[in-house]
């Protein structure tokens, strides 16, 4: 089985700051990989490079075996249709009501008429546990948990093959975080998608992943099945998953 996403030697620097220093990563079809790592280690840059929002300086990114590293325009849009993404802050369009946010990819990306797109949006909202009347609210009227749910509904609206989750539980209370984790697991299975998430929440990482990879110093320093993470034998991983201040990872206090 050929990998769904493959990163080969991806490098990215901003000015003199090297963020990604040769990332190699493989995501198998219908699996769920979680990238863990501290703040500012390049987790978001990794995802945004795959999405084409950031252009890597070096390296190759393959999606379904196709080199998408330098795609632009219509060819890029075609690849984008395979993707869905849940942004950390939701990134809902605040000028549009909830249902139009969820239906956005269907209406704008695929040219579907508004009426059937709205029906699909309501159906997707139901999947994430929101009533149909939420569809007529605006994003500013929603609570944090509802924002994530709507963001999730938007991410799955066009039945994507690959879904990206950027810090899905950040800013939620533990109960709501667990609910969102359950929703992620069930919706990804439901759509039959491949999932790639980034988080520093270990509870979430353990719950939603089949495999975990740890990003540190611009490289993947460990990866393996989720069950193996407690016996990784890697001092960096051990320090991170147990959240210890002492260890090989030195947090740069000043940026």
């Amino acid at each position: 089985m050929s990998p769904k996403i493959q990163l080969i030697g991806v490098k990215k620097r901003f000015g003199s700051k090297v963020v990604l220093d040769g990332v190699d990563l493989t995501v198998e079809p219908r699996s769920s990989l979680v990238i863990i790592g501290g703040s500012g280690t390049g987790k978001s840059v990794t995802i945004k490079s795959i999405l084409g929002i950031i252009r890597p300086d070096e390296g190759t990114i393959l999606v379904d075996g196709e080199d998408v590293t330098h795609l632009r325009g219509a060819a890029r849009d075609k690849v984008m249709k395979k993707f869905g993404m849940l942004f950390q802050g939701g990134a809902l369009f605040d000028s549009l009501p909830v249902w139009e946010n969820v239906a956005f990819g269907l209406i704008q990306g695929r040219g579907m008429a508004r009426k059937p797109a709205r029906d699909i949006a309501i159906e997707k909202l139901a999947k994430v546990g929101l009533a149909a009347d939420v569809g007529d609210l605006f994003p500013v009227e929603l609570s944090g948990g509802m924002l994530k749910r709507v963001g999730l509904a938007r991410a799955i609206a066009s039945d994507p093959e690959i879904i990206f989750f950027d810090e899905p539980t950040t800013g939620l209370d533990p109960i709501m975080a667990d609910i969102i984790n359950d929703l992620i697991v069930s919706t990804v299975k439901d759509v039959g998608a491949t999932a790639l998430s980034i988080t520093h929440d270990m509870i979430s990482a353990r719950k939603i992943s089949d495999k975990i990879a740890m990003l540190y110093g611009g490289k993947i320093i460990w990866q393996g099945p989720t069950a193996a993470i407690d016996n990784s034998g890697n001092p960096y991983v051990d320090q991170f998953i147990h959240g210890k201040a002492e260890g090989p990872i030195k947090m740069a206090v000043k940026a």
Partner: protein
Amino acid sequence: MNPFASIGRATMTLLAHIGRLSTFTGTALAAIVAPPIYGRLIGQQIMRIGYYSLPVVGLTAFFTGSALALQIFLGGNRFGTEAVVPQIVVLGITRELGPVIAGLMVAGRVAAAIAAEIGTMKVTEQIDALTTLATNPIKYLVVPRLIAAVLCLPLLVAIADSIGVFGGYVVATQSMGFSGGTYLKNTVDFATREDIVSGLIKAGVFGFIIALMGCYNGFNSKGGAQGVGNATTAAVVSSSILILAANYLLTSLLFSK
């Protein structure tokens, strides 16, 4: 501190800015002709850029026309040329003040609003979200604003021209003893098609500048609330300066014959 180094750095920054702006303009122009055309969004922007600017533009045009009439009357008094008030007012308004005043007012209103809106979308990842939903942000956000602004500004200026002349007319007939009929006849007889059309051409260019600078600064805003604030200020300042510079260039081009 090496003075040559700081001059060099400033020059590099300026050149980088010009380069980025040129690339942005090129991308936006290419996106205008590529499908799809978002008619619904263009309509929305016409309302926001054109229709809602009417009160501001109308009021400023009225007061500008009346002040212009007053100045020409009082200044002309010194060498006995008060009678040319209607001619100078219509010339000044259509060729120069109508487009410039409307351009500057809309720059303050619209360039700021565009930069703030797009800047906020940028810092809250809404622009990235557009990309992930297979929608080109330039096409979706920039093109409708550019088209609407280029269409609306000439219409606004046509209205500003009429209201400005009317402002002069009110002052001239009420306090300078002009007869209404003579004033209007002198205005209509004197104004040429070239006077009016040149102003409308300027207006179209100003519209382009306003939307472009609003979008460009919004797209390049960094950080949080402060970044959006800076982008808004930069949009208003840069579009106002560019409007005045373009006004001079266009005046010299259009009337060089």
